[in-house]
């Protein structure tokens, strides 16, 4: 049983933002509810008002010049089946196919997933590796937030109380590039996730650009610039030789926490393993 709450159903982002601003901590955005309702059922949180934003639309997937724009209210189910994403972001489609289970994917939204910022989640890690932007709106303004700045801590994003995440923007992948996301887990939620976005240079001889993000193991997903530097600009063979060290660096960068998912050392080790595999997977598809 849930405790009683009042339901608001705004018809515009402005209206939603105003309600949130007015009621502050006692109001919360409600979309799919797949995380929120669980926390409320557990009694860990309570809100006097839930602001149902499903009337705001925001479930588009489209390409605008070189940017893929994904509405925050797209369900995981929509994303795993979106034709616009199959060719441009197949790694993201695969990630979405493996989020939770078919029932959660049916109603859970990408926006809700990102905003709840549960540490053991997948999409944030990949979106960091592709340097996505999160578009946040409130009554009077709109801003773009780099994925790297979006996740502050476990269950905490940089969004203000009256801001609504409306869209996620992903730069369309360049030629000779590929993305790989690998995860490992044996409990219901993933324990370790690693995303690699790799682009070869024009001659396809060296790694023109590489972006690495680690997630699930620690409180929030992290980009690992130090590991990227060990691989960027190198030939494929030399980069491959640097992978073990890059893996160690990435493991530490994950800020792994010992919990039921595994010890800190174990998670750090798995980060290294997944980095190696994701690197080779992305490389083979460039």
């Amino acid at each position: 049983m849930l405790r009683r709450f009042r339901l608001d159903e705004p018809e515009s982002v402005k209206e939603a933002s105003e309600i949130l601003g007015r009621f502050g901590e006692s109001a919360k955005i409600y979309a799919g509810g797949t995380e929120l309702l669980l926390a409320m059922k557990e009694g860990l949180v309570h809100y006097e008002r839930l602001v149902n934003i499903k009337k705001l639309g925001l479930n588009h997937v489209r390409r605008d010049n070189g940017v893929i724009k994904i509405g925050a209210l797209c369900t995981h189910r929509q994303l795993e089946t979106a034709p616009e994403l199959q060719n441009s972001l197949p790694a993201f489609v695969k990630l979405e196919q493996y989020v939770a289970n078919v029932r959660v994917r049916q109603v859970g939204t990408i926006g809700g997933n990102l905003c709840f910022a549960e540490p053991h989640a997948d999409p944030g890690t990949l979106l960091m590796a592709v340097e996505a932007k999160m578009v946040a709106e409130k009554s009077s303004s709109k801003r773009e937030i780099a994925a790297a700045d979006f996740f502050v801590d476990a269950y905490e994003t940089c969004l203000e109380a009256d801001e609504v995440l409306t869209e996620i923007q992903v730069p369309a992948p360049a030629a000779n590039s590929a993305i790989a996301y690998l995860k490992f887990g044996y409990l219901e939620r993933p324990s370790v996730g690693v995303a690699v976005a790799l682009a070869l240079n024009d001659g396809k001889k060296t790694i023109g650009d590489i972006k690495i993000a680690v997630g699930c193991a620690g409180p929030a997903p992290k980009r690992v610039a130090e590991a990227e530097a060990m691989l960027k600009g190198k030939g494929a063979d030399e980069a491959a030789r640097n992978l073990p060290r890059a893996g160690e660096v990435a493991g530490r960068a994950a800020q792994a926490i010992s919990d039921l998912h595994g010890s800190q050392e174990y998670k750090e080790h798995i980060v290294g393993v997944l980095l190696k595999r994701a690197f080779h997977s992305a490389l083979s598809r460039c």
Partner: protein
Amino acid sequence: MRFEKEVEILATREKVWDFIWDVDRFIACVPGCKEAKTIEAGKRYSATMVEKVGPFKVEFPTTIEVLEREEMTRIKAQASGADNKIGSRMKIELDVRLREQDGKTLLGFAAGVDILGKLAALGHGIIKRKADQVLDEFAQAVKERLEGDS
């Protein structure tokens, strides 16, 4: 969960010891702690601990009991509280030691923290990290307060 911290304070042992028993100022160093009251000087105190992890907020009305006291050297205390709204209890066993070294005071804490009830659903790791953060901030605040008043 066990934590150990040590902080070096540029102040005499006497000053640090006196500061600890100045309940209002001492409790003010604990992040999220408010409304400190002396129930029985030297023996029992109360305070309210408010902590937040993202949207999850707890408010523990806490009772602190001093179990052992060795002048200028050591305090053993126990704090316990319950947040009935979210069905969780907290228990902290605290061992505080003071050592003098080259005119400075080394203030050491050993804390055993137990969180029971629904809050544990957040995951041992998250709670441990939060508790570690709180203790870190506490130790820093004590140091700054003491070094600040010269």
